């Protein structure tokens, strides 16, 4: 025992270092411990406020671009609205419209975003007080952005689609082949489409959409466009690479979607599993 104490006392600096390394490794490999507390990430008040100031300054110098983005978004929305009005009688019974009624939308701004890490995150300028909750989906004007992970009163942090921790249930092409989309952490321009059997026919240029399986995102939101299909992969599934539709480098304004029926759906699914 005395020898042990002597060794500890003699090498206390080294042991202290290994203790710090242990804490770091626990933080690196146990993300839940870290993210369950909103204090330890950029959703905390001080960090969020600093990023908000930074974002306001950057946005001020990009006002022209933001303005033209909003104009083109308005133009497309106007076009869609006219189309819906023109075909009101067709849409009135449509399932897709009913489907969108189950979702509530909150608009938010991205104040901090990363694209080059293994697991990328974004920080939103809205939090609990604005109705943001954990596990809500985040979409941009063009497509999927990610999922909320941690919320404080005024800010929230989410997993970006460019995070290996996020797998989005999806459907490919017109025949709506069930699949999943994930990022393998290499190139921010490449998302992988998983679990598409080899015998099914899909083509380069097909769009990958969200499916309603996870009840986080509305069905039919574009995720990516297929760029490369490899039928000679060793597994039973095709190796598919796709380009994300949303531009993660420049996205500023997003919509957080809340499925009002999610709780009910989950409860029912849980009861069925018992």
């Amino acid at each position, binding site marked *: 025992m005395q020898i042990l104490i002597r060794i500890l006392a003699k090498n206390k*600096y080294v042991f*202290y*270092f290994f203790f*710090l*390394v242990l*804490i*770091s*490794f*626990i*933080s*690196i490999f146990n*993300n839940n411990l*870290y*993210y369950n507390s909103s204090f*330890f*990430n*950029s959703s*905390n008040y001080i*960090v969020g406020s*600093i*990023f908000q100031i*930074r974002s306001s300054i950057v946005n001020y110098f990009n006002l022209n671009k933001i303005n033209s983005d909003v104009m083109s978004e308005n133009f497309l929305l106007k076009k869609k609205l006219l189309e819906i009005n023109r075909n009101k009688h067709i849409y009135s019974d449509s399932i897709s419209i009913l489907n969108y009624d189950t979702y509530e939308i909150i608009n938010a701004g991205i104040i*901090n975003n*990363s*694209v*080059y*890490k*293994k697991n990328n*995150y974004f*920080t939103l300028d809205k939090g609990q007080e604005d109705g943001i909750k954990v596990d809500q989906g985040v979409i941009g004007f063009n497509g999927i952005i990610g999922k909320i992970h941690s919320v404080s009163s005024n800010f929230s*942090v989410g997993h970006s689609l460019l995070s290996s921790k996020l797998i989005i249930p999806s459907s490919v092409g017109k025949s709506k082949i069930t699949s999943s989309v994930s990022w*393998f*952490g*290499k*190139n*921010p321009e490449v998302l992988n489409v998983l679990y598409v059997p080899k015998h099914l026919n899909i083509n380069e240029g097909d769009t990958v959409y969200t499916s309603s399986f996870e009840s986080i995102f509305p069905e039919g939101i574009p995720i990516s466009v297929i760029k490369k299909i490899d039928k000679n992969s060793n597994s039973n599934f095709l190796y598919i690479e796709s380009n994300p539709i949303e531009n993660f480098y420049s996205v500023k304004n997003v919509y957080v979607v809340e499925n009002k029926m999610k709780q009910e759906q989950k409860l029912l699914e849980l009861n069925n599993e018992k």
Partner: protein
Amino acid sequence: MKNKIISFCIVFFLQVVIFEKTYFFNSVIFSPIIFYFIIFNYFKNSFSQLTFSFIVGFLLDIFSNSPGVYSLALSLMVFIRNFWIPFYFPFDRISSNKLYNSYELGIQPFLFYSLPLIFTFNSAIYIFDLSSVGFFPFFILKILLSTFLNFILVLILQFLLVSSDTKYDWN
């Protein structure tokens, strides 16, 4: 002392607000904060320096949403420095009241002293935080390029923040 705290806060702020968001040429990260951990005075087995590096790393982790990565990288760098200085410098050149910068050591010794430390820091960041290793030689090349450019950044910061006649003033 007050000036040093202010300059440290400014460099920390630049790190989290500007440099943390930029990934130059899709391969290089700049970390100005390492400047302080390379040049500060040497005290053998200093718990306070190790603790300070861990706390600064922890704060950087909060800003960059990278749990544990910067705290590991900075404490690893300070730990290695603790053994690197007595190994690299002759016994009579080690002093607790001097700064380890290029004014004090000369450019070439400073280069050989600081490059392994910067390389250690960058390796930890690249391995645990940045995108997957991928093609290994290219991955190493990225770390080496980052190391060299960070060395230049450290030199620039040193010329901006440390004047050559105040070299003994950082206790």
